[in-house]
């Protein structure tokens, strides 16, 4: 009755314009996504076939295959590939060696203080990878590392070196493995918590012993989720830049990521070898792509395993006997000591000293807050912090807005365009940050739109890197909202805009906010993209610390800034985890 216009009755022809608007915004969004993610990769591919000996790839220069022959005939390529794979696999193995017992103890047994200890396990999430690397260099550098000094003193070693040397592949694996622990824990602990005990109980009632049940039922049922996490973190290991850059480069150990960086920023000061770097990037992309395909396989398989009872019950906890319990407690304590306490303490110690010094009573007198006052008073630090905050906030809003729209269109409007977009987004989870940065750098060297060397190029790179992650946050959130809730609003006569504003947005807001916070943290503490795209005009905290550290200019300043970064990053991470636990609470 509200819409009836009597004198027009019968001749009224309302051609729907809503459909047109939707089609238009759909294509616009697809174009934006393609521009952000695919166009830079196109530029990378293009550059890999150009001779860039003395020129930029898009200048008048011949087409060539020499970049690839260069990559494939050089023996170092295969060594770098081997190191990358070994480094990723080693870090993964170490992390799982720690995570699996931890997850079992904290999620399935009557371990004391589980809530607190879970936080302890997750605490290193607040530690940016490069800060972890810095801390472990201070702890385990061969000559002056604190742990080495202590061990040499205790055991009376007089060689002046070792026993540990952080600048080694073992050192890289050790630091990265520790840093992987909390993320992997988050990824797989849910499977432990919500594991339906009926599977095990029915095995036990069939007469199987505890060990048989573990071997025949528990492990096979958990393995898809563990395998999924393993493949995913293999990708993360391949793309890792910060630990290989901080620890590997000084030790002369190059991975695919740092190799690309080396080619684009030759330490000898020559011209960037864009062509070879691009060819290397394409190879890296292929390795990561193969892992993405493997990951998709594993995820596909996982749906066959129904391990999660959705009723929100908690399986009965296994009772630990006293002495395994004591062993477990000391194990968790040791992990906490190595993963957080030592790194934080060493950074704090160095930040309070005016010059580098071993720990001794006499140096206690020199302790000073001057490094912190430098952080707060130095105008250049001020502008770095402003850059970082602006860059990370704009990135977070842009990423989550585009990710939400993409997820919405992919779910609601099953058009072919979005099926392709969905696949491309899923696959681009595997595009290493280094590749994103190099591609975007090349693109805006060519496109003179005035963003090269500004923080806006960082924003575009962050968007290309993290939109895929954003959609993985928003897709389940939107799926939970359910189409009916939106349709109900339409049936009440509300326009598309009102439905978006009054129904959809309020309902997805918790996930949206959580996603924004998460992307903000990633962007603010990044030391990969910002390092590769570094110019005078876009220094952020990550790139500032990289420069300071690499030039060994001002150690206490670097440590002080790191400590502050860890505090902010931990606080924000804690907020994200709180969002998570709110989201996980069963509804109703």
């Amino acid at each position: 009755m509200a819409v009836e216009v009597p004198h027009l009755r019968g001749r009224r022809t309302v051609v729907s314009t809503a459909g047109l608007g939707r089609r238009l915004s759909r294509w616009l969004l697809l174009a934006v996504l393609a521009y952000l993610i695919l166009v830079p990769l196109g530029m990378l591919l293009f550059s890999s076939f150009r001779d860039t000996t003395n020129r930029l790839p898009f200048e008048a220069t011949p087409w060539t295959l020499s970049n690839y022959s260069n990559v494939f005939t050089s023996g170092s390529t295969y060594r770098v590939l081997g190191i990358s794979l070994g480094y990723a696999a080693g870090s993964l193995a170490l992390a799982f060696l720690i995570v699996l017992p931890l997850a079992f103890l904290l999620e399935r047994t009557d371990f004391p203080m589980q809530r607190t200890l879970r936080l302890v396990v997750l605490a290193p999430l607040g530690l940016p990878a490069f800060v972890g690397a810095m801390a472990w260099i201070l702890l385990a550098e061969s000559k002056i590392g604190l742990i080495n000094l202590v061990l040499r003193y205790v055991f009376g070693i007089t060689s002046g070196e070792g026993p540990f040397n952080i600048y080694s592949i073992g050192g890289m694996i050790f630091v990265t493995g520790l840093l992987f622990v909390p993320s992997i824990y988050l990824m797989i602990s849910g499977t432990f918590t919500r594991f339906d005990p009926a599977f095990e109980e029915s095995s036990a009632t069939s007469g199987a012993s505890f060990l048989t049940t573990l071997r025949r039922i528990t492990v096979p049922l958990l393995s898809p989720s563990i395998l999924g996490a393993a493949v995913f973190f293999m990708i993360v290991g391949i793309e890792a830049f910060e630990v290989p850059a901080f620890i590997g480069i000084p030790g002369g150990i190059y991975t695919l990521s740092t190799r690309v960086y080396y080619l684009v920023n030759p330490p000898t000061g020559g011209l960037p070898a864009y062509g070879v770097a691009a060819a290397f990037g394409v190879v890296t992309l292929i390795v990561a792509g193969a892992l993405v395909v493997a990951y998709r396989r594993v995820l596909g398989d996982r749906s066959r395993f129904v391990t999660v009872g959705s009723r929100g019950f908690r399986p009965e906890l296994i009772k630990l006997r006293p002495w395994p319990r004591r062993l477990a407690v000391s194990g968790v304590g040791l992990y906490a000591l190595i993963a957080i306490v030592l790194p934080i303490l060493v950074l704090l110690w160095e930040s309070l000293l005016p010059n580098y010094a071993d720990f001794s009573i006499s140096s206690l007198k020199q302790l000073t807050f001057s490094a912190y006052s430098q952080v707060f008073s130095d105008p250049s630090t001020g502008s770095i912090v402003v850059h970082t905050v602006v860059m990370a906030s704009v990135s977070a809003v842009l990423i989550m807005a585009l990710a939400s729209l993409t997820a919405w269109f992919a779910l609601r409007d099953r058009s072919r365009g979005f099926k392709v977009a969905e696949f491309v987004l899923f696959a681009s989870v595997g595009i290493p940050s280094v590749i994103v940065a190099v591609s975007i750098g090349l693109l805006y060297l060519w496109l003179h739109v005035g963003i090269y060397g500004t923080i806006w190029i960082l924003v575009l790179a962050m968007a290309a890197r993290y939109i895929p992650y954003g959609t993985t946050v928003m897709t389940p959130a939107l799926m939970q909202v359910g189409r009916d809730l939106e349709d109900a609003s339409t049936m009440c006569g509300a326009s598309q805009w009102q439905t978006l504003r009054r129904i959809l947005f309020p309902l997805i807001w918790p996930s949206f906010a959580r996603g924004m916070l998460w992307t903000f943290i990633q962007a603010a503490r990044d030391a990969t993209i910002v390092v590769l795209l570094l110019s005078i005009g876009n220094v952020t905290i990550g790139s500032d610390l990289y420069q300071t550290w690499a030039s060994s200019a001002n150690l206490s300043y670097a440590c002080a800034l790191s400590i502050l970064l860890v505090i902010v990053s931990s606080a924000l991470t804690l907020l994200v985890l709180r969002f998570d636990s709110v989201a996980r609470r069963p509804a109703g």
Partner: protein
Amino acid sequence: MISFRGVTKTFADAERRHLALNEVGFDVPQGSVYVLLGPSGCGKTTLLRCLAGIETPDSGEIEVDGEAVFSSSRGVMVPAHRRGFGFVFQSYAIWPHMNVFENVAYPLRFGQGQRVSRDELGRRVLAALDMVGLKQYAERSATRLSGGQQQRVALARAVVHEPRVLLMDEPLSNLDAQLRAQTRKQLAELLGKLGTTTVYVTHDQIEAMALADVVAVMHDGMIQQSASPRELYYRPATRFIADFMGDMNWLEATIRGSEGDHVVVDTALGQLRCVTNGERRPGTPVTVGIRPLAVRLLDAAGNGSNGRVNVFNGELTETMFLGDATALTVRVGDNVVEVLTPDAQPHQPQLGLYLPPDSCVIYDR
């Protein structure tokens, strides 16, 4: 008055094209309750969503009160939010971030063309809540409602803006059996009071019969029969509908000829008079269907029938007490006839059965 003409809708997934609506045409008289009944996947919900404007048909014409809301020939597609309908979803779709009052007030606040003063808004929302018996729950959070309460809030929200058409998609299917029966009764009463033209989708034939003025049975994207509940139950047009509506005794038969208003057929039981539906030549093999509930038992004196036609003697082989009724299995010669009777008394082993001709329906074999 709603009218559908030649409405077709296909869904295309990866490889297959699925014809959800196949040239559907029907009319819903003003003020009546029109129930679309069918098994899942028959296209009934798609039809409702096309009428609502949430789905767009491929082709056809849909008119409401003489005005096209969809017409492929004239290029008309009135968007859902401009149709002025009310919709009750199967999931209820109660917004969890609003309380009961805010949910119900939504159409008046944000609906197209609604200009309602604050006072009137409050009055109308409370009136709608009062109608469904939830006036005292206005301030309660939507997440703290039981299933039955959510269903009633959904109904209040669908009618608060006085829609010209009310659409309901399986509104009772998420309630447990006892509550469903109770709510069905209240709903029938309420729909009668509202007098709004209603299109109601369900897969439950009892619900359909209880609520409908007209029931339309859908199968494979087409309306197979639309008729009054009684007609549909006792004289279903096809064997599919007959089976869908409830249990049926099936007898193989051959057409013999016609006699008065009835058709006479030969069956293994003997001669049987049936309802005339369509012309069939003598000798045509057919199947006769009769509801167990339509079969009557003759008393000890052999009384209870109209004369001696369609009366048979049988032997009781099985008795099953079901509470509301008793199911008897009676052997007549080599055939078995199922009988449903309210009489729970012990029955004689030898029984006389009367199959009323008006309930014996002939189907092509």
